[in-house]
């Protein structure tokens, strides 16, 4: 199993509140690892640390053997992409959105990026604001994937979607994982979804990793 992320004693405090309390964890560099736990458990905070959008107060995180604070943050964020809980379209067309991530990409490459996430390349000229919620979130996924990351961080990416587009989003991501080298860290609090998408589960409660219960994972392996 490849290295991926290794966390040692990772602690985050917000004032008097400890959001993450000395977390030790390994997230392998393959398959889908779910970070599961109730709201406020610290899942999203942990995910943001992995993309260095926040830094821990204590402890260390390495990615592929290199400490995050020794890496160029821009290079890290190109290797480790992130899709947020709420879709974040930028002003302009779908093509404009993709061009923010990949300014040199031509229309063929952009069309292909949309196809990878099961969106019609005809949407390239549409104003991003006119897409449906599910389409928007997949456009954000395409925007991240066009930078060709090795690892994808997903922060409850389907929580704002209805059941059908949520399932479509899951299938799209799993197809990408099964197709190639993409590693996914999926933050979620929906048991059923975690069982469908995850290869292994890390369970967070009150800012600490807890001994995970036995998960009956559809994708075969348990943690």
């Amino acid at each position, binding site marked *: 199993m490849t290295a991926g992320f290794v966390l040692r004693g990772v602690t985050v405090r917000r004032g008097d509140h400890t959001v993450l309390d000395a977390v030790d964890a390994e997230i392998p560099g393959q398959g889908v690892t779910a970070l599961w736990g109730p709201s406020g458990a610290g899942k999203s905070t942990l995910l943001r640390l992995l*993309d*260095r*959008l*926040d*830094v821990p107060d204590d402890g260390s995180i390495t990615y592929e053997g290199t400490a995050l*604070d020794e890496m160029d*943050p*821009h*290079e890290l*964020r*190109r290797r480790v*992409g*992130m899709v*947020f809980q*709420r879709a*974040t379209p*930028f*002003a302009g067309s779908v093509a404009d959105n993709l061009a*923010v*991530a990949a300014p040199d990409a031509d229309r063929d490459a952009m069309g292909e990026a949309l196809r990878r996430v099961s969106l019609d390349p005809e949407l390239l000229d549409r104003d991003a604001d006119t897409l449906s919620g599910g389409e928007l979130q997949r456009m*954000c996924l395409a*925007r*991240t994937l066009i*930078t060709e990351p090795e690892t994808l961080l997903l922060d409850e990416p389907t929580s704002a979607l209805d059941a059908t587009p949520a399932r479509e989003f899951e299938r799209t991501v799993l197809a990408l994982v099964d197709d190639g080298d993409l590693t996914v860290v999926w933050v979620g609090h929906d048991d059923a979804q975690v069982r469908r998408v995850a290869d292994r589960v890390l369970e967070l409660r009150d800012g600490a990793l807890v001994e995970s219960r036995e998960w009956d994972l559809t994708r075969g392996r348990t943690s």
Partner: protein
Amino acid sequence: MTISWTGLAVSLVLVVVAAGISLAWRLGLERSIVWAAARALVQLLIVGGVLALLLLPGVSLWWSWLWVAAMLGYAAYTAKQRAPAVPGLLPVAGAAFLAAGAVCLVVLFGLGVFPLTSRTLVPMAGLIVGNAMTSTVLAGRRLSEEFADKRAEIEARLALGQSGRDAARPYLRGVLRSALSPQIETTKATGLVFLPGAMTGLILAGVPPLQAVLVQAVVMFLVLAAAATTTSVVALGLVRRLFTPDDQLLALSRERT
């Protein structure tokens, strides 16, 4: 035309009118009104006294420059006090005032619009710094509000590997526009809606109206240039301070404006 001390005393009736209105409506602002009027009067008298000293024959121009420097420092401090939620505003405001002062004073005195004397330097610098201070507070607040509102979008850009400066650029333009617009609107309405202060003062002091208009026009252009320079220096300077060296967007609190 001159005004006597008696005239000044009589004009205090107008302050009493304002305080009376506050009393009638039970606004509780009487003390504030009287205090503000008294404070303004004392400050103006002090300024007038010091200016009179500076204008005495044989007094070095350096004393006027010293006054300008003190105004700059105080204005930067005041800007910081008025927008406490904007991180790192004090040094940025100082730099913005210096830039605005340099641009405006070089044009005014370097190109010979006015002769460089204490009589021209102190009031002009006061106008520049005063307006630059308003622009700084406005731009600083707008910038930190915009970045707090657009945090998700900016972080999405950072997560795509953009630098903080690149991620901020699309939002900066809007901030600059909205911070400069009030000044442009004021400039447009000048003469139609209201007669601006410098011109009114000059006319009351007996200066021919055309001369007063010319001075006022220069003052307006000065204020416009000061606002534009300040706003862009504040925006560029603050953007650097809103991100950490590793391009994380700092936590920003929205403040009431």
